[in-house]
């Protein structure tokens, strides 16, 4: 009776493993969505650090193109030091913006130049104004998009979607005309990477839209990659210090683990052999 029960269990296990294994592979291949192009990001991997030139170009794209609709609420100018700017350059960057500064004697609003401790000002005063200016759509804040659009998979890392790849995908996969049979709502554009393929944002980048200070040719793909790098930095500004500290912690703890292994073996030597029993 028990053996029969066990055999039934074993059979179930084998049959389900075979069917699930065999048929779900076919399923995974068929159901895959638009495959995002995967880039080799210099900041990826355990030792990857940000490409500072790319970060600076990305900031330029953000300021000259994206910032007219998208806010960057959580980034302060002082943090731009991480992009390779010195203190004076950061001050100058902040001073390009104006901030309200109380009222004058006649009750009129006063303004002052920005300081490094200020945060990037938002293009719209509130969500209603933003929607009104954008055909009802609300351009999302850039501060965390690099992290909130990724899908990481621990056990099937090849299925992971990285935030940077997704952002480049959005910026690079606009179609001038929707494919046959797709009815676009008014004011919408067709985009391969966007879920549902209908995106309220009109194609934002065109070749040579900005003139890079470092002379890099400003192709759409280049600008997309630069702004994606910048956005990932904005979402995870402590990535470099995190990875550097991680290396030290793991080296230290690994050596300690090896030492403790030998300590443990030494402590247990007699007990393991049962010498105390003889």
């Amino acid at each position, binding site marked *: *009776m*028990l*053996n029969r*029960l*066990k055999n039934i*269990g*074993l059979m179930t*296990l084998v049959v389900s493993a075979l*069917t*699930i294994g065999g*048929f*779900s592979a*076919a*399923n995974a291949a*068929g*159901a895959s969505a638009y495959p995002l192009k995967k880039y080799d990001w210099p900041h990826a991997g*355990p030792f990857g650090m940000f490409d500072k030139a790319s970060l600076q170009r990305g900031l330029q794209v953000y300021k000259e193109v994206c910032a007219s609709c998208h806010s960057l609420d*959580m980034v302060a100018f002082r*943090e731009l030091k991480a992009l390779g700017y010195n203190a004076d350059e950061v001050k100058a960057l902040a001073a390009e913006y104006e901030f309200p500064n109380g009222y004058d004697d006649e009750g009129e609003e006063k303004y002052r130049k920005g300081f490094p401790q200020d945060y990037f000002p938002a293009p719209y005063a509130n969500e209603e104004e933003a929607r009104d200016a954008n055909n009802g759509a609300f351009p999302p804040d850039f*501060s*965390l998009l690099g*992290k*909130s*659009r*990724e*899908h*990481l*998979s*621990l056990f099937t890392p090849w299925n992971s979607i990285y*935030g940077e790849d997704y952002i480049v995908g959005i910026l690079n996969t606009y179609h001038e005309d929707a494919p046959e049979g797709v009815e676009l709502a008014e004011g919408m554009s067709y985009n391969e990477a966007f*879920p549902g393929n209908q995106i309220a944002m009109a194609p934002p980048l065109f070749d040579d839209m900005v003139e890079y200070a470092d002379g890099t040719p400003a192709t759409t793909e280049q600008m997309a990659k630069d702004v994606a790098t910048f956005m990932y930095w904005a*979402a995870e*500004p*402590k990535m470099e210090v*995190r*990875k550097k*500290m*991680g*290396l030290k*912690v*793991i080296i230290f*703890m*690994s050596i*300690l*683990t090896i030492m*403790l*292994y030998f*300590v*443990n073996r030494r*402590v*247990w030597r007699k*007990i393991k*052999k*049962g010498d*105390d*029993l*003889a």
Partner: protein
Amino acid sequence: MGSSNYQPTNKAVKWFEDRLPILGLMHSTLGAGYLAPRNLNYWWNFGSLAGFMLVVQIITGVILVMHYTPHVDMAFRAVEHIMRDVNYGWLIRYTHSNGASMFFVVVYIHILRGMYFGSYKSPREVLWFLGLVIYLLMMATGFMGYVLPWGQMSFWGATVITNLFGAFDFYEGMGESILHLLWGGFAVDNPTLQRFFSLHYLLPFVIVGVVILHIWALHLPGSNNPLGIDAKGPGDKIPFHPYYTAKDLFGLSFFIVILAIFIFYMPNIMGHPDNYIEANPMVTPPHIVPEWYYLPFYTILKAVPDKLFGVIAMFASILIFFVLPWLDGSKVRSAKFRPTTAFFFWLFLINTLYLGYLGTKLPDEIMIDMAGGIDALTMGRISSIFYFAYFIVIVPLVSRMESTKPVPISIAQSVLDANKKG
């Protein structure tokens, strides 16, 4: 926790010990005064690892609270303030968020070890109960902690899970009253966040209390061991210190390496990306999933067509562990000598992992591409039935009918026999 034979030699220490015998208590609990079976394997490391994780969570949590603001308008920004502006705030927060996951990993292994080696069986039933109480408290604490960053998954996870309690609608308005009590209003909102914050701070200290009871209950019969036989003679036992302190330290050090890999190199892999979008009651995420450690139970919930019975099945799937000591009627504890039991244990584990995998799927997602496509809901129902069948049919039947392998006379004898062979 047991009488102590601790005899301090230093006069000042002795003076203190005579007035508060706390050092003797430590000595007999974690020191040389506690005699443990000599044959504990590395699966026995996970108890002390769980204790370590509890301490890590409390320390990092207390620091996080210094910088956090439990208010719907400020919570999300406060977490980002911790991540960006607070010195090493990213380290504290990533340790706390990944620490929660690793705490569950460690506790799951600890529970499974208890199942495999029969640690729940007489005379350790109350020890087992207290462990399950700790686990239930951890589930509540983990859930409420996930709500605090006030991201999209925080808000919608809280909405889905709290709504489950509305199923207890036994008389007119009862479900609604329960929900209003949980929410502090008519929906998940600021009062909900504030009460969850309060309880998330309180429950870990309740866990500490139950952990103390758990260790107390452990020290009466002493630890179980891989052979599952009682440690009787002096040759069966060795002092906890230095043997198990050395072994636990080695295990802890190795575990910290694993923990560090998550914290420093993939800190967001256990979380959901939507939680980096601020909570918005007007926008429902396309796919609401709980934290990974609830997924098997979430699948069981979804497998039952009726809401009330789904919720009951979900709670029952955990509460059934409380009766495991009586469902299992075997005279032998360890599955080492119970091959059929061991086989079904592994089947149960695989099935539970698969239940967890199904928890991430939409009900109509096709899991097996045959017979017109078998969807996740159907697979979830089959797996859920097996889950309960394991407890209600397989364990009671197998444990009473199985012919077990011969069990060694004593732990010391098994060591001597192994040496003769080797």
